[in-house]
């Protein structure tokens, strides 16, 4: 029987001991003596969040299909266990074997949001791995980062041996093979890093040198060795039907955020919203065949016993085979008491019809993401949703019996005016009016409109990567303005308003477009006790303020400073397909309030056409490979 890393006494003292036991259905156990590579995959947040992540399930399955590799998992110990581990010197352990993470060959950390960066340091620290890659020895695991935040890995450059840029299915096999053969030949850690740096998609930060100008911007970013590529190319799967899918996903004992079968229907998005990083870095849009997904849904429901199936994509309505897939799910899964959840659907007659079949209308709410309050602002961000679309969709939904609407907006978008801000509650008012136009006896009581705003954070590889980010004071002023304007609306009693905390957004803004000089701020903040920054109950603002003061780094350099078109940006060395020329063109068009058609309407020659796959192939026979970087 399996022995545990934690004593009974600890497990009975802490919250939710099931976070640290492993042993879940479909957890993979192997004999450690019989594998060549031990890989520990980490999601640097609490178990319930980490276990809900599809990417880890994909890689866990992919790695464990290899006979020579055993992939295990670790998540951030929650603050209660964190404290005990520090006090008692208990090293961080992997869930499956319960062995110390420090004994592994690789520690892979997925970087899903900037506000988990202090948790990355916690993982390294509790594992007993030196925080700085430069101080690690042959005995330490290789620490590799991936996920969306790896598209600007620089703020974490000191702490990682390598980064994997792009989708894991493509280059990981080559990386693991290279690791094995280097070791068989008696090669060192340094030898391996040099080999790895030449594998497509692998970035080894220590092999690049950055110099700065007097004004603090980057003067040069160059490989230290002529054999190391100057540009690192993002990896992507050209045919989603040819890669493996985790049809036996892990089934946790405790309730986690995503407690259901997840079908990834497509990657990428055709829409091209100018604030959206995912819409750019995952180009081109590629679909998975509906027939395959139907098989997966059957296999996965049988293998997990889950009572819900959900579709995953950036914009499900754009999936061309959606009607067939949804019909199939309703006919099969729906018959067996399995719930069907359909996130990221555009509200129209089709989606309302589908939703009325799979949801309890009285309980569910409809979500619109206009992102901005006026048409002008929506043109700037290239959100192709018009007021007419929203009002029509809402009217249809109200007629269908729904009476709860959620609206998502951003504050602090480039060129935003007071009119745009006040436009947010005014749009909510127009929606409420549509509801109260329905005769009293036909409607279902009052309607409930929930307005939520988040603060806009410019992200790398978007047309807004040059934009100046708003300050905290301005954010709060704007949120106040929305609140005030809402109170002036006729139907204010049907509205509620929530806004995101501004401090966290500003910090997110610093790290999103940061460079390697931020590593020392991060380390200081961690030393000052910052951890679980995305959890409002844990967020420790003073710790961060002190860290900036102690290192003499001005956060405004990274947030509110406007970047020139010529500036070398810290992530410019990555080739994500989408060209800088395209992003600049889009940045210019945004200033002129011009919209750009989506990928299916007309190709804009963004650069992703060079992958010759997905929507780029579907549109035209001839692909122009322009990449004018």
């Amino acid at each position: 029987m399996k022995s545990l890393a934690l004593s009974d006494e600890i497990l009975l003292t802490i919250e939710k001991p099931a976070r640290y036991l492993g042993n879940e259905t479909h957890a993979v156990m192997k004999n450690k003596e019989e594998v060549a590579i031990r890989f520990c995959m980490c999601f640097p947040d609490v178990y319930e969040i980490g276990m809900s992540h599809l990417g880890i399930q994909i890689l866990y399955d992919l790695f464990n299909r290899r006979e020579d590799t055993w992939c295990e998992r670790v998540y951030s110990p929650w603050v209660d266990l964190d404290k005990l581990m520090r006090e008692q010197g208990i090293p961080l352990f992997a869930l499956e074997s319960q062995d110390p993470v420090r004994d592994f060959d690789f520690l892979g950390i997925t970087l899903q949001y900037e506000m988990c960066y202090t948790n990355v340091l916690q993982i390294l620290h509790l594992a007993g791995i030196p925080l700085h890659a430069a101080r690690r020895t042959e005995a330490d695991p290789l620490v590799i980062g991936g996920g969306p935040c790896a598209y600007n890995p620089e703020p974490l450059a000191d702490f990682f041996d390598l980064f994997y840029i792009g989708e894991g299915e493509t280059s990981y096999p080559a990386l693991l093979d290279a690791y094995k053969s280097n070791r068989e030949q008696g090669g060192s850690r340094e030898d391996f890093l040099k080999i790895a740096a030449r594998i497509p998609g692998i970035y080894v930060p220590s092999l690049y040198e950055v110099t700065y100008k007097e004004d603090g911007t980057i003067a040069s970013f160059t490989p230290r060795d002529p054999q190391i590529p100057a540009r690192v190319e993002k990896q992507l799967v050209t045919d989603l039907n040819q890669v493996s899918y985790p049809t036996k996903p892990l089934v946790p004992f405790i309730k986690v955020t995503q407690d259901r079968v997840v079908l990834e229907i497509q990657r990428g998005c055709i829409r091209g919203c100018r604030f959206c990083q995912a819409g750019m870095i995952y180009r081109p849009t590629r679909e998975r065949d509906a027939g395959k997904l139907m098989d997966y849904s059957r296999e996965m429901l049988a293998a997990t016993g889950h009572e819900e199936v959900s579709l995953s994509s950036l914009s499900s309505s754009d999936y061309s085979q959606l009607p067939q897939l949804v019909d199939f799910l309703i006919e099969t899964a729906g018959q067996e008491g399995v719930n069907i959840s359909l996130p990221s659907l555009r509200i129209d007659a089709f989606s309302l019809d589908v939703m009325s079949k799979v949801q309890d209308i009285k309980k569910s709410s409809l979500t619109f993401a206009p992102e901005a309050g006026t048409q002008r602002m929506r043109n700037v961000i290239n959100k192709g949703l018009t007021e007419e679309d929203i009002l029509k969709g809402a009217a249809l939904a109200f007629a269908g019996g729904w009476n709860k609407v959620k609206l998502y907006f951003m504050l602090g978008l480039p060129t935003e005016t007071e009119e745009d801000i006040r436009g947010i509650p005014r749009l909510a008012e127009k929606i409420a009016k549509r509801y109260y136009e329905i005769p009293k006896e036909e409607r279902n009581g009052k309607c409930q409109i929930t307005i939520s705003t988040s603060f806009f954070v410019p992200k790398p590889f978007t047309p807004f990567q040059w934009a100046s980010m708003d300050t905290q004071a301005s954010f709060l002023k704007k949120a106040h303005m929305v609140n005030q304007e809402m109170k002036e609306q006729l139907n204010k009693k049907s509205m509620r308003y929530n806004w995101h905390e501004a401090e966290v957004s500003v910090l997110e803004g610093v790290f999103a477009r940061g460079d390697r000089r931020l590593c020392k701020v991060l380390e200081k903040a961690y030393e000052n006790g910052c951890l679980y920054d995305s959890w409002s109950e844990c967020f420790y603002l003073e710790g961060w303020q002190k860290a900036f003061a102690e290192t003499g780094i001005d956060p405004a350099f990274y947030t509110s400073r406007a970047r020139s078109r010529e500036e070398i940006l810290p992530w410019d060395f990555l080739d994500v397909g989408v060209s800088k020329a395209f992003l600049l063109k889009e940045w210019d068009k945004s200033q002129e309030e011009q919209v750009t058609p989506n990928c299916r309407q007309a190709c804009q020659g963004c650069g992703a056409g060079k992958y010759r796959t997905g929507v780029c192939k579907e549109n035209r026979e001839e692909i122009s490979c322009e990449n004018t970087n």
Partner: protein
Amino acid sequence: MKIRIKFRKYGVMKFIGHLDIMRYFQKALKRAGIPVSYTEGFSPHMIMSFASPLGVGLTSDGEYLDFEMAEGLSSIQGVERLNAVMTEGIEILSFLRISEEKSQNAMSLVAAADYEVCFCPGKEPGIKSKGEECSAPSWKEAFSDFLDQPEIRVTKKSKKAERELDIRPFIYEARVDGETIFLRLSAGSVTNIKPELVLEAFFLYLGQSMEPFSLRIHRKELYAAQEGGEARTFVSLESLGSLF
């Protein structure tokens, strides 16, 4: 038809709490392809009932779960199919048909439970924490004196209030067996006596107080009471079911 399964909970699964065990079985029954019946309505759920929630940290050889299913498989198939999808730490021991009557469901039947209790090393009564011998007789002798008392008054804490109670009548059987204390205690909705309560009282009887994490508790069996003639007899919940 109504089914009762008996299962064992051991190893790391002792840290999985009752509500999560319920969720675990909902999914496991589906994985095993057992044709479980659902409630009507917009959000149908399985009709299932556990005999008696087992506390976190306890292991057991005698846990019970009742549910309804459509016909179509035998007792043997039920055990095989379920065990094929269990994680380490849960083992299905039997899969039996039970009476359809509501009063016969596991939860309302439970009247007694058997436990085996041991002390964690160094946590035995009468031994000082530093390991020095104490002048009191060994705890094994003291335990039979403790039981010989006409009454054992304890303060029982519930969610709402504390009340004083004589637990002696609810200790149906008790003996020391090697290093293990065997207890048969009243269980169920009327008077549920946890083994911790008995052991706390024992420590108090010795003029000591029980430290947290002193005990290892293993539940052996759950019983229903049968009132026949003068004496009340206990029959295991399993014995009320039949193979099919």
